């Protein structure tokens, strides 16, 4: 099985290499990208099959130095994340082909190349068996996505990309790396182990300092005030924002936080030494603040970005609560938010493609013009608010049940306020799009986006509904993670 594991990481890499050298017109590149993504999905499915039969799959690549081991292992959380990334890579590469061609973007070879490399780094991060490997791929992911963020090659993208790389690299170098070295220094190992690796004798204040370093060191989780890079990264083309800044990159962030809470600190420990105390409050404040900022954004993509920041903080909040129910909530929310948010970003791209509208105030009446796009947008928005029948409801449900069980009123109130805020910034868009009259009829009287763009949007919207009806896979995987 380790051959499958290796190919899960190598296939995107090879697709990426091919994109760089492929001929200019790009039909071949499109075929290779899509078929590569298909094969990749199949490989991940094979791994999942073997994994659910209870097979132990691992792959030791190389030992760089003592404590620095590049090793991959299949475990529930990584399985879940890699599955999510693989499905969405397939859909977003179809979308990207449609979008980038319709938009007449240049330098598509390097675009698809870096895109695939980023997927490879994300999959490697998901399967990392230890903190060191996770860090290596975390950093590689940062640098590989830089050319994607700056793809526009104008001053605006240069500045956005500059802020992107500065915040992400300095947070990880200044906080994440010393936390890892200190962890190695204290425990003598960096391997993930459910229940934690710190000896019982470790003093509480050290653990609290480490937890702060870890959570803020993982800038990709965009916990306030480390969130500034995410709105900056929105200068990227729509497919990049969709896949990387709604799913792969940001989810790599919360995935790492979750993994560290569960497998480095251990959820029981995390409550005992007081990690929960500060993290829950910070995450709660981040949720409400980000939602409030989203409320006043008129640029569609920045509203979505702030909505992402607030939704990521849900996962961090759940990790901070560190009860089994909350952890299940976090796992489900990673997947649910992934599908809903990518739908929203796809839709935003599709709107921009056809109408060149960037601001929300101009979206009125667009529902009649672009029914499929706006319909999918509506479903995505419902997922953000957490209304059934979308999967967004499930994650919130688990976190809420944990809050009710442990009578955690702070979490309850935060969830209530944020749900109201979510509704307040998404429902008017949908209402305006479908029930208001169009103010300025565009000259070209355009219809909906091309079919190659519409299909992925509808599929992701559909999946976010299906996931509500059949949440079996994420829930059972998170049970497995907790050993229930």
């Amino acid at each position: 099985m380790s051959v499958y594991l290796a190919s899960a990481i190598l296939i995107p890499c090879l697709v990426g290499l091919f994109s760089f050298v492929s001929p200019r017109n790009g039909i071949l590149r499109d075929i290779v990208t899509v078929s590569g993504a298909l094969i990749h999905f199949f490989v991940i499915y094979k791994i999942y099959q073997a994994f659910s039969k209870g097979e132990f799959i691992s792959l030791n690549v190389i030992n760089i130095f003592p404590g620095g081991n590049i090793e991959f292992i299949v475990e529930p959380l990584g399985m879940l994340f890699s599955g999510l990334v693989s499905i969405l890579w397939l859909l977003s590469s179809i979308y990207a082909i449609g979008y980038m061609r319709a938009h007449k973007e240049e330098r598509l070879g390097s675009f698809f190349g870096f895109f695939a490399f980023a997927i490879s780094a994300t999959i490697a991060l998901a399967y990392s068996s230890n903190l060191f490997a996770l860090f290596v791929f975390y950093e590689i992911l940062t640098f590989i996505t830089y050319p994607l963020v700056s793809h526009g090659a104008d001053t605006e993208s240069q500045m956005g990309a500059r802020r992107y790389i500065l915040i992400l690299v300095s947070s990880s170098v200044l906080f994440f790396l010393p936390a890892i070295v200190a962890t190695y220094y204290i425990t003598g190992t960096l391997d993930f182990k459910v229940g934690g690796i710190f000896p019982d004798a470790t003093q509480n204040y050290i653990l609290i300092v480490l937890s702060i370093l870890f959570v803020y060191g993982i800038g990709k989780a965009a916990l306030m005030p480390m969130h500034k890079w995410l709105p900056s990264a929105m200068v990227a083309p729509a497919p990049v924002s969709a896949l990387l800044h709604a799913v792969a990159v940001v989810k790599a962030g919360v995935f790492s936080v979750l993994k560290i809470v569960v497998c480095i600190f251990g959820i029981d420990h995390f409550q005992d030494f007081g990690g929960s105390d500060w993290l829950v409050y910070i995450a709660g404040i981040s949720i409400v603040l980000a939602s409030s900022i989203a409320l006043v954004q008129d640029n569609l993509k920045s509203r979505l970005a702030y909505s992402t920041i607030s939704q990521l903080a849900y996962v961090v909040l759940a990790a901070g609560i560190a009860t089994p129910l909350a952890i299940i909530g976090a796992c489900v929310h990673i997947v649910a938010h992934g599908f809903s948010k990518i739908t929203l970003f796809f839709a935003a791209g599709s709107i921009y493609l056809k109408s060149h509208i960037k601001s929300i105030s101009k979206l009125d009446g667009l529902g009649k013009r672009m029914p499929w796009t706006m319909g999918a947008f509506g479903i995505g928005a419902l997922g953000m608010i957490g209304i059934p029948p979308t999967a967004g409801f499930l994650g919130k449900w688990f976190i809420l049940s944990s809050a009710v069980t442990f009578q955690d009123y702070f979490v309850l109130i935060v969830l209530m306020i944020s749900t109201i805020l979510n509704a307040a910034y998404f429902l008017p868009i949908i209402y305006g799009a479908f029930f208001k009259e169009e103010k300025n009829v565009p000259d070209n009287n355009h219809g909906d986006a091309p079919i190659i763009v519409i299909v992925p949007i509808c599929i992701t919207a559909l999946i976010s509904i299906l996931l509500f009806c059949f949440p079996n896979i994420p829930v059972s995987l998170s049970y497995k993670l907790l050993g229930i």
Partner: protein
Amino acid sequence: MFDQWPSLVVAVPLIAAGICAIIRYEFFCWLVSIITSLVSLSGSIFLYLTVKASGDISYKLGGWAPPVGIEYRVDIFACYLLILISLVAIAVLIYGRKLINKEIASHLRGWFYSMYLLCMCGLMGIVITGDAFNAFVFMEISSLSMYTLIALGRDKRALLASYQYLILGTLGATMYVIGVGLLFNVTGTLNLIDLSIKIQPILDTPVIKVAMSFIFAGLSIKIALFPLHFWLPNAYAFAPSVVTTFLAATATKVSIYLLMRYFYTVFGFSFGMSSELIIGIILSCSILAIFVGSFSAIFENNLKRLLAFSSVAQIGYITLGIAIANNAGLTGSMVHIFNHALMKASLFMILGAIAFQIHKDQLTLTDLSGLGKQMPFSMAAMTIAGLSLLGVPGTVGFVTKWYLIQGAMQNGWWWLVVLILVSSLLVLIYLGKIIETVYFKPASNTGIEMNELPGSTFIIILLAVSSCIYLGFDTSLTLGIAEEAVNALVPEG
């Protein structure tokens, strides 16, 4: 024959230098140089294998027994440097033939190869000799040939840079020889091993302290340790690009080798002496070097000078490992000797290639604008080598960073951990400046007909840059030798 290798690795370049000076036909000299460095490389590897199998080699030059005669002493640490020098020498020769032909006037080319070999001979000699005065002789051989090589630069300022280096270099060598003189005065021996035994009882006397200070100060100039670094930026900037590459990768490293030799072998330093005054001085100089070097690089526009300032900072990391004074720290600086040579050689080689392609000697930042599209290969290579300098995980630079941080942590020096990490972010700033110019600015040099990159240059750059990544993952070679070298130098470590 094989037991003559210790003298052959030095003697062959010396003889070949003479042959080149006589024949002076360009292609012949180039071929002789290649063969010579190949011989030296294979000799070095053979020595390494022998030392690994059967322990240190003591070679009596001319059959005179030490301490009276000159002894060549080869341990793993020496082999490590020998392999590094000969490897760089051969890579630079293959990389640079076309560049040499372009940058150096035809009647000087033969002399160039002669000086190049002489410089190599001197550097190898410093490493292999076990005799304090013999080290001085080789130091002068390498320095004098270096002054000549730098002065061969096409820019007029090369002469001034060379002269500046000559003055300072001579000062440094003089201080070194004064230190050696003092040691000889009190012990009556010049053999390093013999010295280390004879100064044990008098280690605390003022004479030894003074001698140590002289040797440290003299070598610091050669190392270009802050604040004695000011000869380096100009020398690197105005020398021909092949010379810069060779010097950046080897010259300062050899002086660091000699310094470590004196500290650990002769003066018997051991781990955990972080309270000593001299360690304190090295520590503060290293930290200042890192920050001053990086800041100067940030504000520098001439690219070769920029990289030279970055070298000052990187040398700071190497000496920092000495100051951390524990196993992890010294391993870090040991492995950085090789890693930095690799990264800097790659970067200087790429700069040389660009200068060759766009017909310009002194590249400034604006010359790079828009080259991302015109030279995708060179620019990608430069980005990767730059990321390696930054210490991104998966590159050689990260290995060093990891060890230095660990060493600082073991000492409980948390402030140093923070300083190391902050300083590595400074690299991001000057690297970012270059990358943004390359990929975002519109091309400034349209209309110039570009030279095509010679195939051999292309291959060597490709090899160097891919080793920056490969050796960042597979460290068994570099880290393996570095660890052995630390054990050879500080036995109880």
